[in-house]
């Protein structure tokens, strides 16, 4: 049989997390030329971060050309990245091969769905290899029909077997490189668990598989927190896993509960909008605690696990400003003090030493950066006139945010903290808002109205080339991925 090399694909994927696709965004030829001219006009000195003067020149030039600078930034064409063709036949039960509880099928379905959502694999439809008699195969190399799998177009084959003894299930996995007819060493031994944990085992396996191909384990099965429609026309806080299953509704009092955030010790922070004022609450160990007591309002907590500090927006008889406090609400410190503009939406850098936030001190909301001690404030975004909801990536290099363009359409962008380079990740698919990074920095979860008036939750990779819906449930807002 002819050997294909997929080493190059693996090579490309291995680079993916560091942004091999992160080319500067450019649109059609017309706007590309305009963009080049603008870049030349406003180019900052080499090595220096994009400064105010340079960026102002870009804005001025753009306005002189009669275009909104934001409209020049368009999604990079080029389609989805190269994906590895992979076959995942239904899992087999060792012994009698009767899948009476549907365990094997669930196992394979979760694996297939995760691999598809990852954007790294092209999962071959099960019917396309109906002629390969997978029942003859075990989890050892000598039993695998490499020629048959090659002929159906698979580069990688996943075999999952299980056995039920008493009330426990034993899961066993094997992965094969079809082109080199060799096993792929995945660091995933047998798992002896309750059958009810089948989804968790499937997620763990996929994460290990992604780890082998990219150098960084995957994040499937981690949780995403969000605001949802609640009872009696209130709003409530819920979470589910990366594939929309395993949903939890937190037992909170009826109110407009909004802007959730993962808090200390597995707790959930959120903002409660009440007639007596808006304040930040912590729900942990089935107990509810009010952390702030602002006469005006307090909202949008962001917790930094490494320092244990919570940043939030607070207002006392004036516009919002950024505050920091300990995880129990003590040691309150006011970080910004600008009474004439709105300061809001703080987002910690992963090292907890800096924050990104929104300020309208220039007249319109823009993203700023400030040190945790209140020094070194600088403006980061210079294009567009409505840049909000910054979320600092776990690697520290990028900040994702929501911007409004000249058509009053909302889309998601990233900006490089050091170079100021802006990339557009969504375009022409409803409104896209409120991005939140995955813990590995490979994906963003966000809300989008592309499938209806009410927002639903979607996932995309860090350059936006791969986008997929997480859940069809409408009315889900402000998602936050567990760090």
């Amino acid at each position: 049989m002819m050997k294909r090399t997929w080493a190059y694909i693996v090579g490309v994927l291995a680079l993916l997390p560091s942004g091999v696709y992160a080319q500067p965004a450019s649109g059609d030829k017309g706007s590309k030329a305009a963009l080049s001219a603008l870049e030349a006009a406003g180019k900052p000195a080499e090595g220096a971060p994009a400064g105010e003067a340079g960026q102002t020149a870009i804005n001025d030039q753009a306005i002189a050309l009669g275009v909104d600078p934001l409209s020049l930034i368009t999604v990079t064409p080029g389609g989805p990245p190269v994906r590895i063709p992979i076959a995942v036949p239904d899992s087999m039960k060792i012994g009698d091969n009767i899948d009476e509880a549907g365990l094997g099928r669930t196992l394979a379905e979760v694996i297939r769905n995760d691999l598809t959502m990852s954007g790294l694999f092209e999962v071959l439809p099960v019917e396309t290899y109906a002629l390969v008699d997978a029942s003859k195969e075990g989890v050892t190399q000598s039993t695998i029909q490499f020629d048959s799998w090659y002929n159906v177009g698979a580069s990688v084959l996943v075999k999952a077997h299980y056995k039920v003894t008493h009330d426990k299930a034993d899961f066993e996995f094997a992965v094969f490189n079809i082109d080199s007819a060799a096993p792929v060493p995945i660091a995933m031994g047998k798992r002896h668990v309750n059958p009810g944990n089948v989804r968790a085992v499937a997620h763990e396996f996929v994460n290990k598989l992604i780890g082998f191909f990219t150098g960084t384990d995957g994040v499937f099965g981690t949780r995403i927190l969000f605001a949802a429609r609640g009872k009696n026309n209130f709003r409530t806080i819920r979470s589910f896993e990366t594939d929309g299953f395993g949903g939890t509704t937190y037992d909170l009092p009826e109110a407009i509960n909004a802007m959730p955030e993962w808090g200390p010790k597995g707790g959930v922070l959120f903002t409660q909008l009440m007639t007596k004022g808006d304040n930040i609450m912590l729900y942990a160990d089935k107990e509810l605690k009010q952390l702030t007591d602002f006469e005006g309002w307090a909202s949008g907590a962001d917790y930094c696990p490494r320092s244990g500090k919570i940043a939030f927006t607070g207002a006392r008889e004036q516009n919002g400003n950024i505050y920091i406090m300990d995880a129990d609400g003590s040691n309150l410190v006011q970080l910004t003090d600008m009474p004439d503009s709105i300061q809001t939406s703080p987002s910690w850098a992963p090292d907890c030493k800096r924050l990104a936030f929104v300020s309208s001190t220039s007249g319109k909301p823009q993203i700023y950066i400030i040190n945790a001690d209140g020094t070194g404030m600088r403006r980061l975004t210079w294009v567009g006139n409505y840049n909000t909801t910054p979320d600092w990536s776990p690697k520290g290099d990028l900040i994702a945010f929501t911007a409004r363009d000249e058509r009053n359409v909302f889309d998601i962008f990233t900006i490089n903290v050091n170079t100021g380079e802006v990339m557009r990740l969504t375009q022409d698919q409803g409104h896209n808002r409120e991005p939140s990074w995955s813990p590995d920095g490979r994906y963003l979860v966000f809300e989008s109205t592309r499938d209806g008036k009410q927002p639903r939750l979607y996932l995309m990779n860090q350059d936006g080339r791969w986008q997929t819906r997480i859940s069809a449930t409408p009315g889900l807002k402000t998602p936050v991925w567990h760090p």
Partner: protein
Amino acid sequence: MKKILISLGLVLSVSFAMGCASQEPATDLLKDAAAAMANTGNAKECAAETYALAQNALKEAQAAQEAGDLETARQKARLAQTLAKQAKEEAEMNAEECERRKNASAAVEEILNDELSGGPVFVRDDSFKVIYFDFDESFLSSSAVQDLQSNVAVLKAKPEMNVILAAHTDDRGTTEYNLALSQRRGDAVKAHAVSLGVDASRMSVVPYGKEMPASHGTREQDYALNRRVEFVPR
């Protein structure tokens, strides 16, 4: 030894399934999707939108199969199956609220429907006018100032009454910035009322951002109705 057992067993049981699958794969998927649809519990009532999406995908799958487009039929059937499962999960999450709605009379049902996409409804006091704002702005237009003067007159006539200034934005924008913008609108109303002689302690601003729209549409006239500050006696 173990390996031989596996092989023998699998050959017998799976070759049968494979025989069907290779002939009519799209049909099998459609059957699975239809079965998933039948097994969604009360998703039709309790996860209506997602259920409708699933139903639609199944219809498209059936249409594609009849038209001989088996690839589309398979894709849509798989989608229908996933959506049906999501609808089931969603319905289970919503079960309690759904039960309440099902038990409500038809007249109440209409109100509940309206509520579900909105927010808690304040008891409006018709003696006060709603103060409206321009897009993305918190300054008081001349018509807003007139309406505010009317509200100030009411407050002066009822010196024992205190009010909440419930401040809102339209649905455009992001959640927290809208919260801040609505606060600004509330503050602008309060400051002007104070300048007209109302004691500041009688009014407290509560910002709601875009969480409690007065109108649920997405037309400009709907947005205009939502950019507002309401006087609510407390």
